[in-house]
């Protein structure tokens, strides 16, 4: 079975996000970039399935700028066998990414597609679901456990208030949640070997997909500074402040 894993280049989660002075976007100049943590979990899961003998090939894919090849190399160092880069310098929306991935699913015919449940830059939580809709494949989102059994996969999903297990027939789409696994670190021998693994570059035009965005970014605001707390003297005072100052109860 072949597994297709989608990865995204985002700001490293250790780095504080800064907004451009004109609020037009997040400031990316000289910021350390990395693979989206949920995508790391997706790669890890695919590689583990290959190590268990369930999968025979892991193909990593990204849609994004030239520099996103760094993240493909990371995926290769983590154990993916080859990589496909759909190069686009435009801002990539969930739908554009899903369309490109859908074409690749058609070309590659994977048994399983694993994606992160969302990317920590825009937190959209859409691409996996859109891909399922475009390809008509069954989806198991927010996975905390994935068990392939013959032509079926059981996916344990993290849902509000508990866990839900669904069984999908393969081929299927899975998106990863935080507790699915703990991704490994890329080691130097693997980083070196990753450079020799094949990396194909395609344009959206090669795939016949339109990357034009359908949403417009109007404004980016940093989160408001938190106000310092106060100590109240009595329950009455608390109720009063909640009513009249915070206006959260009436």
């Amino acid at each position, binding site marked *: 079975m072949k597994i297709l894993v989608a990865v995204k280049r985002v700001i490293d989660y250790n780095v504080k996000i800064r907004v451009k002075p004109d609020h037009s976007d997040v400031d990316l100049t000289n910021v350390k970039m990395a693979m989206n943590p949920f995508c790391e979990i997706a790669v890890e899961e695919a590689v583990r399935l290959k190590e268990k003998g369930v999968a025979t090939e892991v193909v990593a894919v990204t849609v994004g700028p030239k520099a996103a090849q760094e993240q493909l190399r990371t995926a290769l160092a983590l154990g993916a066998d080859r990589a496909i880069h759909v190069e686009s310098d435009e801002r990539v929306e969930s739908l554009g990414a899903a369309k490109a991935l859908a074409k690749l699913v058609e070309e590659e015919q994977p048994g399983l597609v694993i994606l992160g449940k969302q990317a920590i830059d825009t937190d959209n939580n859409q691409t996996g679901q859109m891909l399922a809709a475009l390809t008509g494949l069954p989806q198991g989102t927010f996975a905390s456990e994935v068990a392939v059994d013959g032509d079926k996969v059981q996916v344990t999903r993290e849902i509000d208030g508990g866990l839900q297990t669904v069984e999908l027939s393969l081929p299927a789409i899975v998106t990863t949640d935080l507790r699915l696994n703990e991704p490994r670190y*890329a*080691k*130097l*021998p693997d*980083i*070196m*070997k990753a*450079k*020799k693994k094949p990396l194909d570059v395609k344009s959206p035009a090669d795939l016949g997909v339109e990357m034009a965005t359908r949403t417009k970014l109007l404004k980016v605001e940093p989160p408001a500074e938190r106000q310092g707390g106060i100590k109240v003297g009595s329950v009455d005072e608390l109720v009063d402040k909640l009513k009249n100052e915070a206006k959260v109860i009436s």
Partner: protein
Amino acid sequence: MSAQELFPNLFSPFRIGPCTIPNRIVFTGHDTCLPEDGIVNDALVAYLEKRARHGTGLIVLQVSGVHESARYTSHLLMANDDACIPGYRRLAEACGQHGSVLFAQLFHPGREIMESSDGLRPVAYSASGVPQERFGVMPRGLSRAGIHEIVESFAAAARRMCLAGIQGVEILASHGYLPAQFLNPQVNRRDDEYGGSFANRVRFLEEVLDAIRREVGDRMAVGLRLSCDERDEQGMGQDIAIETLRHLESRLDYASVVAGTSATLGGSVHIVPPMSYESAYLSKESHSLRSDLSLPLILTGRINQPHEAEEVIRSGAADLCGMTRALICDPAMPAKARRNDADGIRACIGCNQACIGHFHRGIPISCIQYPESGRELLYDDLGRAEISRRVAVIGGGPAGMKAAMVAAARGHEVTLFEAGRRLGGQANQAQLLPGRSEFGGLITNLMEELKRAEVEVATQRHVTPQALVAEGFERVIVATGARPYTPPLELLGELPVSQAVALLDGASLPGGHVVIYDTQGDWVGVGVAELLAREGARVTLAVNGLHPGESLQSYVRDSTVARLHDLGVRVMTYARVFGADDDSVYFYHTGGAEPMVVEGVDHLVLSCGGEPVVSPEDEDRWATLPVTLVGDCLAPRTAEEAVYDGLKAAMAI
């Protein structure tokens, strides 16, 4: 020719205050780390007595702290208690018996505090609370009572020196020490009578000099050591130096001219200028000072040889010459010059390794070429062996040359076998690096000593200890050195990899983007980086240590690192090499194991030290033979250990 004809100026007497100095050669003040507990000991007496015995005209003693707050290291001499007097008297007598004149340096470092005996940071005092960059010290501005106390402590220390029979005192106002901190408007931010105008900033020194004169009158020479230029953005320029000397001239018997400041890395290079500075490099500044003043001047700084000193005096740049490392390296230099044996002088090569390098590590002074230096109590005289033996030395690097020369000087019949065409070992490569040509002086000096000791030298001879013993040699010293070490490397491609020392042997130099991997922090890594950058390569220097040139003496290191910076060499620190493919080199960060990859590389050069050519198996094979291993073939280290190994092995025969 007589000394009078050869060096008419150098060997003419000179008057400073009440003293007549027999010649113009000065052993300027330098901390030896020989004293323990702040008082004069046998080692220091023996060290200075030796220089006096061989004809040094004026000896200026290492700094003596005048006040408890003057302890800038844990091993300086202290003159803040009458108990110090007998020790200084011993020195005055030891030097005086040979006709040398002895002065003492009176010292307060102000904010220049390097370390302390208990490792804690002492309270540092200065003119004002302006931070010191090199040691990261934030000093406390002195109160007026504090200033008065320190002024009086200078006077009291001068009185003690006078009682001890020392003939002069020299106030250390050079190198950014306390008096210089008062003079420097960037450090002195006071708004009382000690700060602001020049007249106020020089007041501290005026008071010090007046208090000293009050105590000692004209019975002692009183001098001032001053940097003619502190050679740093944060330091003082020549204008303040001239103004200061003009202003204080009437209170002084002489001035001692140097450059630099202890306060910054760049400024401190001039405290002991390394071999990249030319001989007597401050002559011009000194010349212009001298034309402005009628004060006798001592000039110091890379004056290495008697003919250089003769020229400084003849040209009128100074009246006397500090020749400090020249005398650390060869205590008999004045006597040799006087008897017209300049070729016999072991010239200092300005490597800084064992003199100021030892000082910074808190260990007693020595010299890489002359390990007997600072060890006078052990090796004042090499002595004669009781039985003369046939001794073979295998390997003509510094260890083997020193061993052969010392063994021969002790009366043995010595043959030195060298497999290559010429003697010198790795010093041959060291001298090919930019600014290091003087390192070859190590070979020249040792060859001269071999010749004089009548060692038979056989080059291009491959010999074994077994064969030599069979031939009748009674002792064999093996000094065959090391071969370059290659660390484990994962190679997954065609990137060319070379050994740094091999490049120096005349192979064509790599161009393009060259990565140099250096685990040693010695002269090879930084030297090859500079060489290749000058030849037009784009160089990345990846060092295993915390910074480039980590094991070099700091003045050598910092002047070199500054040149690498100018040449655009990129530096990576904390790097441990893992491997290379066609065009990238892969490293781990030694602090956290995070991978670091350098891409677009054309060549990898290794500078990872050596491994001994003599194996433990060889040692077992020679177990029954009278064999001693010395130098790198025993354990790869530096030239200093090699030469000292050679000395010790030869002394044991």
